């Protein structure tokens, strides 16, 4: 499949990298020569100098035979024009990154449908949604929903105090008859591994589980995770992301406090929000925030425009008793730093955007996609086709791709957690966890490539 990516910024670079690893023909357009050279050195893609809004450049990139066109430069207008050009060349799937809310709100004068573009991705919306998912599940570092929310994919940090710490997966196996779940992956020291029976769960790991949503409370109990629901939310920064997160939790009926250092921003928030309390304070003004209950917060979401502030604020909040702290961090160098600092999770607009786009591109047989820990792994939801060569054999008998595992199956709308004896049937929907280099094999295996 030929894919054109316009803009080699953080998002474009990341998407190009992922798609090329998965074996697609990727053409990257970038007008900045310095950046272009970097791409050529690091990625196995065709890099062309020029703007995506120029028809000649697009023809040069082979736009006529392209299936997917992704415009992710920093400028909305360039992305839109590039997609409109691609539409004229008959590209079937066109995706534009659009920052302005004016295009994505309901009733927009120029909406995606009117422009004939398949998908608008707003990085701020994408990242706000990720923050909401993680903040809403107590103690989770990662959350994704499959099969309309009936199957969950959750990541939890493991501490010394955790009852499963030091156990091997084989030890857990006995427990699993009572609490059905699959340990899909463990990340340790920045690496993701698909565990086998003799692998031990260690302190500092993040374990990733696939489970049926209704079993969540008992599994959380097994893992000794705090049963308390999220009730008190602190949001630092009243910008677009902070506002979205705050208004989501306000609507969910939680106790929300939003903090911003800018008086004008606070006034605007006070107008747009309802019950949420808007505080005009500096993030480092700990006394004022403690007086407003920061120490009793179930979760703190640091979502200011300044990532250093977010990291510091999350650390301060943890230090003063907030149960969990999430921060919005964009710089790749920081994204990998954050978990080592004791901040519970970090979310990056660029990575959120990239995974939202990848999710869309991989449709077809793949119903849904989620990414794990800076895209070190992915979770796919696939539909089982009847023409597969291994149909009718139990899972332990088929040569399943290495680096991948079936986490859950949705059969006739009933979620079930598979064992080695499980036989996948046509019409089943399988939730598959896979490392990046196994994505292509998994897609071949399920015939969804």
């Amino acid at each position, binding site marked *: 499949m030929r894919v054109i990516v316009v803009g080699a910024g953080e998002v474009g670079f990341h998407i190009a990298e992922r798609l090329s690893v998965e074996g697609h023909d990727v053409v990257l357009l970038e007008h900045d020569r310095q950046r272009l050279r970097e791409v050529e050195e690091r990625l196995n893609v065709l890099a062309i100098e020029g703007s995506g809004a120029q028809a000649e450049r697009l023809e040069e990139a082979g736009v006529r035979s392209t299936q997917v066109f992704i415009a992710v430069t920093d400028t909305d207008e360039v992305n839109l024009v590039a997609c409109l050009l691609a539409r004229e060349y008959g590209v079937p799937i066109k995706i534009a990154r659009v920052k302005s809310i004016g295009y994505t709100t309901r009733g927009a004068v120029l909406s995606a449908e009117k422009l004939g573009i398949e998908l608008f991705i707003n990085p701020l919306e994408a990242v706000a949604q990720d923050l909401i998912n993680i903040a809403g599940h107590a103690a989770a570092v990662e959350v994704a929903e499959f099969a309309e929310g009936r199957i969950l994919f959750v990541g939890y940090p493991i501490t010394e105090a955790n009852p499963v710490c030091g156990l091997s997966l084989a030890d857990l196996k006995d427990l699993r008859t009572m609490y059905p779940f699959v340990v899909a992956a463990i990340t340790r020291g920045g690496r993701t591994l698909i565990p086998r029976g003799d692998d031990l769960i260690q302190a500092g790991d993040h374990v990733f589980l696939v489970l049926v949503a209704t079993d969540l409370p008992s599994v959380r109990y097994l893992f000794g995770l705090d049963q308390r629901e999220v009730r008190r939310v602190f949001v630092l920064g009243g910008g677009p992301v902070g506002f979205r997160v705050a208004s989501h939790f306000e609507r969910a009926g939680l106790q929300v406090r939003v903090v911003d250092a800018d008086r004008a921003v606070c006034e605007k928030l006070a*107008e747009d929000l309802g019950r949420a309390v808007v505080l*005009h304070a500096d993030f480092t003004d700990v006394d004022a925030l403690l007086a407003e209950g920061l120490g009793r917060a179930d979760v703190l979401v640091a979502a200011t425009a300044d990532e250093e502030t977010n990291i510091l604020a999350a650390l301060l909040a943890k230090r003063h008793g907030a149960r969990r702290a999430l921060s919005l961090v964009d710089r790749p160098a920081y994204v990998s730093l954050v978990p080592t600092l004791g901040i519970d999770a970090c979310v990056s607009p660029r990575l959120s955007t990239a995974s939202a786009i990848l999710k869309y591109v991989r449709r077809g047989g793949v119903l849904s996609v989620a990414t794990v820990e800076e895209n070190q792994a992915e979770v796919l939801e696939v539909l089982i086709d009847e023409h597969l060569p291994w149909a009718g054999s139990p899972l332990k008998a088929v040569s399943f791709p290495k680096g991948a595992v079936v986490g859950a199956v949705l059969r006739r709308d009933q979620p079930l957690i598979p064992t080695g004896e499980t036989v996948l049937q046509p019409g089943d929907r399988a939730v598959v966890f896979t490392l990046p280099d196994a994505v292509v094999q998994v897609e071949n295996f399920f015939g969804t490539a």
Partner: protein
Amino acid sequence: MNIPVLLKVLGALALFLAAVLLTPLPLSLFDGDGAQGSFLGAAALAAVVGGGLLAGTRRARPELGYREGFAVVTLGWALFGVLGALPYLFSGHIATPVDAVFESLSGFTTTGATILTDIEALPRSLLLWRALTHWLGGMGIIVLGLAILPMLGVGGMQLFRAEVPGPTADRLSPRIQDTAKLLWGVYVGLTATEAALLLVGGMDWFDAVCHAFATLATGGFSTRNASVGAFASPYLDAVVTVFMFLAGVNFVLHFALLTGRPRKALANEELKVYAGLTVAAVAVLMVLNAGSLYRGFFENLRYSAFQAVSILTTTGFGTADYELWPAACQVLLVLLMFVGGSAGSTGGGIKVSRILLVVKHAVVQAWSLIHPRAVRRVKLDGRPVPDAVLQGVLGMLALYLIVTGAGAVGMAALGVDPVTAVASVVACVGNIGPGLGGVGPADNYAQLPQAGKALLTFCMVLGRLEIFTVVALFFPSTWRK
């Protein structure tokens, strides 16, 4: 101030009133009550005044600004009061000009306070004129409250600018006319409905029309000495209670309800508070009255609800002498006199929405003491209330209380007993009618000194025009060229 254009508008208003003065004429001729001369004379005088003003101001530049707006509203009401007093004077049923103007302005401001000791002694044509002054006043108030005062920014009323769909015009005046026509349609429709329901309940057409006029305007002039109580019918009490309540609702909401947008109307915060307040007031009165005066739940409900709604909406009809009720009931009713109806209704008083905003503001202030860093906005219907509106509301509240206090001192200085002095001013500034003491529901304003009646007449106009409108005219700069 563009005085020629001001006089021109007043002239047009006088001509309009001259035409209205002729409406009771057929009834007068039919009854042969001898009052036809008074109406003809009054209409002629009004026509001469109007014609003269128009003729003298033909060259006026047609520019009506803010300052002219204040003057037209206040002087227009005063002019109606004076010209409308003429039939009472000419017919000889009211002896002094002060009394006649009091009765006339009590009608046009929809107050309903009367200096007549025997209402039933008046010919039907004059009683119809009394009811008509209410009804016209009510029409004026709807436009005043939803179009003119919002435009002038009086007392935070800019928040209640009528949002009636219609042809969008850049200029404001055609917009006001369109708005007025739609809202008047609702007003006329509600009046006709009530009159029909009263007819069904056994009133004759004359009583039905007069009471419907007085109800929808939240006026309170009855054709009987014993007010609505004279009809001794639970059904009629119920109809009047319901329509008094409806008249105290913002007419824009009636319009929304009638044009198939019930959700918008019923979600209105002021309406909810107004309804809640009414229910609460009725409940408290019923508890306090239970066991002493009324036998049985329904009798208690009938009388408590009627008086509570009548006072809260500032109508002033009566079916019971609440001065015989426990003292707590009387104090509660006086408090309700301050509240009044909703903004954009024909009711007087401070208005429910203003009280609501002041309470919300106070709550935010108190809450901010324990959350010093918090930023919080007062909201109404989920939308933030601009500071200018809050300031207008607070200013209006302050002026309202100052005017009431000063008026009460003035009345007392004229030799009126303290309870009557306070109650008469509260009842007149709030455009209610009956008060307590010497001006209670079983009494009237006849025995007050002439100077006191003049003072109360001024209070009625002040209260009706939201105080600021009148006060604005006392600044010399209003009148400068």
